[in-house]
């Protein structure tokens, strides 16, 4: 039974020029579940994430949130809807504006929607604590921290609006084992506390098996139960 509480890509088709990347792909992420997405490199996993994150307009099909179809992408999506889906990108280096300190990086989405400043500072402190960033790291800019530390900041930024859906695009691929475990634990805790829907892309089969409630294979679009 399909619950309306889900982020749904319905019969999504994406082509870059004549190269069809996604052809009629349907994927749903329900509230409270963790879905693993796997497939060989170049099969369109990242494109699917960009479509689900409302950052890329599909050439066919549509995305709906809790049963409401989303028209338009990027700036055209109302802010309230846009911030319900957050993305954690593969490369924290690329996903962080090199000019912002980690504090500003985490606070930016709140300031973008004109949240009052005292509340912003409180939320940043709370999230920094959650992801394990010490105060001296928060004043640094991205070039002065490691990939792992930067990805923690990006995770804090992704959670800042308390999104209902979190999409992790190989978010732990560039991290060392302990950071990877910590990031995964923070996401899992958040998912339980917020009853959020999480989509995880990873090539790490062991991590995927532990983490995901069900696994979707994009190459064949075959749904298989985990374990």
């Amino acid at each position, binding site marked *: 039974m399909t619950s309306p509480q889900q982020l749904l890509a319905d019969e999504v088709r994406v082509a870059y020029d004549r190269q069809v990347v996604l052809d009629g792909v349907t994927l749903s992420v329900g509230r409270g579940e963790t879905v693993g997405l796997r497939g060989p490199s170049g099969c369109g996993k990242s494109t699917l994430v960009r479509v689900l994150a409302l950052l890329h307009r599909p050439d066919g099909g549509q995305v709906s949130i809790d049963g409401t179809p989303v028209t338009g992408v990027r700036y055209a999506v109302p802010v309230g809807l846009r911030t319900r889906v957050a993305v954690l990108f593969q490369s924290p280096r690329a996903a962080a504006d090199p000019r912002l300190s980690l504090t500003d990086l985490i606070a930016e989405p709140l300031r973008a929607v004109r949240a009052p400043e005292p509340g912003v500072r409180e939320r940043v402190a709370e999230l920094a604590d959650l992801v394990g960033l010490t105060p001296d790291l928060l004043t640094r800019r991205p070039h002065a921290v490691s990939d792992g530390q930067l990805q923690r900041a*990006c995770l804090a930024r992704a959670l800042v609006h308390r999104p209902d859906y979190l999409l992790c695009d190989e978010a732990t691929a560039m991290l060392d084992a302990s950071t990877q475990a910590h990031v995964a634990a923070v996401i899992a805790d958040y998912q339980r506390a917020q009853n959020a829907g999480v989509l995880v892309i990873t090539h790490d089969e062991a991590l995927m098996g532990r983490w995901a409630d069900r696994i979707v294979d994009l190459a064949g679009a075959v749904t298989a139960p985990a374990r």
Partner: protein
Amino acid sequence: MADLAARRALPRPLRSRLRPRRAGVVTAGLVLIVAVGGALLAPIVWPLDQSAVALDQTRLAPSWSHLGGTDDLGRDVAHRAVYGLRVSLLVGAVAALVATVIGGLIGGIAGTLGGRVDRVLMRIVDTIAALPHLLLGIFIVAMLRPSLGAVIASVGLTHWLSTARIVRSELLSLRTRTFVDAAISGGAGRGRVLVRHLLPHVLPRLALATTLMIPHAVWHETALSFLGLGLPPHLASLGNMISDGEGSLLTGAWWASLVPGAVIVVVTLAIAVLAARWRDRLDPRVRAELQL
């Protein structure tokens, strides 16, 4: 602790590779300080009557009393070169600024909006770029009366094309960066992304483009004055002086053209050297290696 030490150790080989260029940068800096300082202070410490002539002292070779010699009207060449430099630097700086504002706006609009607006604006830029810009500059001056304003307009209105292209391509490539996606996903609107994430990256490039434009604008002004389209002939400008000295060259008085010519070469070279060094520092690859 360990990664901090590693970070300090890393840039060292690169630094030593850059060191030989430091002498050039220091020299260029000193030249520029002397040139700008001299140009600014000249009216106070060494006033010049622009229309004064001394017909009993024509074409004197450089000496201690006339460091740059005198021209065919007995005017001190070095003295007038300082005032010519004043005009050249003023025209260069203001015209470069005008070109930056126009180019920044056109490139900014094209790069921010993209699509059809971008295509139309860039075709206009291509069309103007296809015309010889000195000819276009002459056309603009010819429509106005010879004056400082006309020269600035002529230079400014013909030199914004490269700035527009730089800003546009910079914005177009920034727009596709992941951190812009992240900002949009976080709820930022167009204005917020532009002000917070795009402009701070473009502005240093824009400032650099302006600086690189100054030598170009100076040369353009000199060319216009040389062709008799710049400032009125009695006013000292480097182009006017080179042009006036042309007649003296045949009589052996090489200094009347060479001194203003040398001033312009040395000063524009100094600006170009400093701007090139600045560009290297801005280059993201070098900057990453230097951990700036």
